C-alpha cells in the first residue's frame, strides 16, 4: 500500500541555520534534487526536498493536479524550514525553478537558484499537438531520454508518461511566473545547459532580462541536457549552487 515510488521519497537533511528548499520538476520526483541536497547539507545547510503533489505516486494523480497544488507543496517545505533556519534559499529544476520564483516573489527568500527554468512552454512540437488532443488523450509516453550521462538517466525516478491535462497547468504556472519576476528582490543564480534540447538556453536570458536589476547572474553549463542536477555536469552545478549560497550567506 506504500504509495510513494521507492527512491522518490521527499528528504530532509538536518544541518545549520541556512535552509535550502529543493524543488523537483514536472513528472519527476525529489530524487532529481536529492544528491544536490546532500551536497549542500555537506556544506552545513539544512536541506529539504518536498514531493510536489501528484508526483512519485501514480501518473493518474497528476490529472487532478492544479499548479497551485504544486506551489502549496513548495510552501509546505518553506514553512518547515522556516522554523529551523535564519535564511531560506530556494533551488528548483525546470518547473521547480518556476515555483522557486513564485516563492521568492511572495515570501522572505534569501536567494534563488533556477536550473533549466522555462520562461515559455517547452519547445517540443508534440506538446502543441497534445494540447489540442487533451480532451481525448490522457497520457502520452515520453521520448527516449537524451542525456549526456545515460547511466544517470537510468537511475531516475520519474513518470514515463506526460499526463496531458497537466501540461496546461505547467503553462499556467510559467505564465503566472512572468508577471511575478519583477517582484523577486533576492539574489538569483540562473543555470542552464547550453545543449538543453527541451527548454532552450534562450529561456535563461529571458528570465534574466525580466528580473529587476540587482544581484543576478547567469551560468551556462556545458555537456549536460535538461536535468542539470543529475546529468553529466552535475558536479559543476553542485559547486556553483554551493558557492552562490555561501557567498550570499556571508
Amino acid at each position, binding site marked *: *500500500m506504500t*504509495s510513494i515510488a521507492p527512491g522518490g521519497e521527499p528528504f*530532509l537533511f538536518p544541518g545549520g541555520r541556512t535552509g535550502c528548499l529543493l524543488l523537483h520538476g514536472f513528472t519527476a520526483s525529489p530524487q532529481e534534487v536529492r544528491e544536490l541536497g546532500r551536497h549542500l547539507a555537506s556544506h552545513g545547510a539544512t536541506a529539504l526536498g518536498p514531493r510536489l*503533489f501528484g508526483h512519485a505516486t501514480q501518473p493518474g494523480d497528476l490529472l487532478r493536479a492544479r499548479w497551485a497544488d504544486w506551489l502549496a507543496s513548495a510552501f509546505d517545505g518553506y514553512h518547515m524550514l522556516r522554523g529551523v533556519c535564519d535564511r531560506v534559499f530556494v533551488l528548483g529544476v525546470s518547473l521547480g525553478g518556476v515555483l522557486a520564483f513564485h516563492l521568492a516573489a511572495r515570501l522572505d527568500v534569501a536567494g534563488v537558484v533556477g536550473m533549466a527554468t522555462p520562461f515559455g512552454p517547452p519547445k517540443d512540437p508534440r506538446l502543441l499537438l497534445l494540447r489540442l488532443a487533451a480532451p481525448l488523450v490522457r497520457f502520452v509516453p515520453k521520448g527516449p531520454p537524451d542525456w549526456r550521462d545515460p547511466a544517470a538517466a537510468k537511475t531516475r525516478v520519474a513518470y514515463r508518461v506526460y499526463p496531458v491535462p497537466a501540461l496546461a497547468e505547467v503553462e499556467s504556472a510559467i505564465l503566472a511566473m512572468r508577471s511575478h519576476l519583477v517582484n523577486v528582490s533576492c539574489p538569483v543564480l540562473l543555470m542552464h545547459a547550453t545543449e538543453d534540447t527541451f527548454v532552450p538556453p534562450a529561456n535563461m536570458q529571458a528570465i534574466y532580462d525580466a528580473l529587476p536589476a540587482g544581484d543576478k547572474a547567469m551560468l551556462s553549463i556545458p555537456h549536460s541536457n535538461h536535468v542539470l542536477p543529475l546529468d553529466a555536469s552535475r558536479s559543476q552545478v553542485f559547486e556553483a549552487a554551493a558557492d552562490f549560497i555561501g557567498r550570499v550567506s556571508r
Partner: protein
Amino acid sequence: MSLIMPGAEPFYFPGGRTGCLLIHGFTGTPKEMRFLGEHLAGAGCTVLGVRLFAHATRQEDMLRARWRDWVASAEDGLHLLREACDRVIVMGLSMGGILALLLAAEHAVSGVVALSTPYDSPDPRLRLRPLAAFLTLFWRFARKGPPDWHDPTVAADHLEYPLAPVRGGVELYDILAELRRRLPSVTCPALVIHSRGDLTVRGSSAEAIVAHMGSGDKKLVWVENSGHVVTRDAERERVFAEVLSFVRGLEPSTA
C-alpha cells in the same frame, strides 16, 4: 502571501533522535496538532506536523482529493523524519489517527497514537456512499455536525474548513474500510485516547480500534471533559502528558 491559511502551516521542530509525526484530521489543519507538537519538542523530541493534501488552502480543493493522497502526505512526513531520527512515533487526530494507523500497518514505526479516531462511519450520511457518483454531481458541500467544544476560548481560534466536502465524505468512507482491513497488521505499541464528550466520533470506535489492532502493547485512555479535538480542548494538558509518557516509554532506557 502564502497559499496556506495563516497559522495553519505545517511545522518542523528539530530535537533529539526520537521523531514524532503529527497528522491532523479531515477538513482540519496542522494547527490542531501544533500545540501537542510544541509540548513534545519541549521535551526533546523532533517533531513534524504535515499538511494533508487539499487542507488549509481552499475548501474547493477537497473536491479533487482522494484518500490515497492523504496517505501519501502522511508518508511524506515519515520520510522527512527518517534522516533526523532513529525511531518515529506516528500520531493523528480523527482521520489523522486513521492515517497514523495505516502508516503503522505498512511501515516500520516505533509506536502509534490514535486520538479521537473513528472505526466506522461517524456520520450516518456516509451510508449514502453507493450513490456518491450521482450525488456529487450536484451536492458539493454538506453542513458539519454541531460543535462539541468544552473550552470556548480555544474554539474561537480553531482553524478548519467550515463545510464538509461531500466527495471527501466518500473518501472518508473508503479510508475507514481500509482501516478496518489493515488494523490487524498494526503490531507496534499503541495508545488510543478518546473523550467521552466526543459528539463527532463515539467512544465505541476507540474500543473497536483497540480490540481489532494486532498490537499486544496497547492502551486506551479516556478523557471526560473534552469534545472531538482533544489536542486542543479543555483537557489538552492531560492528553499531552499521556502522549509524552507513551513516547518516553518507547525510548531506549539510558540507565
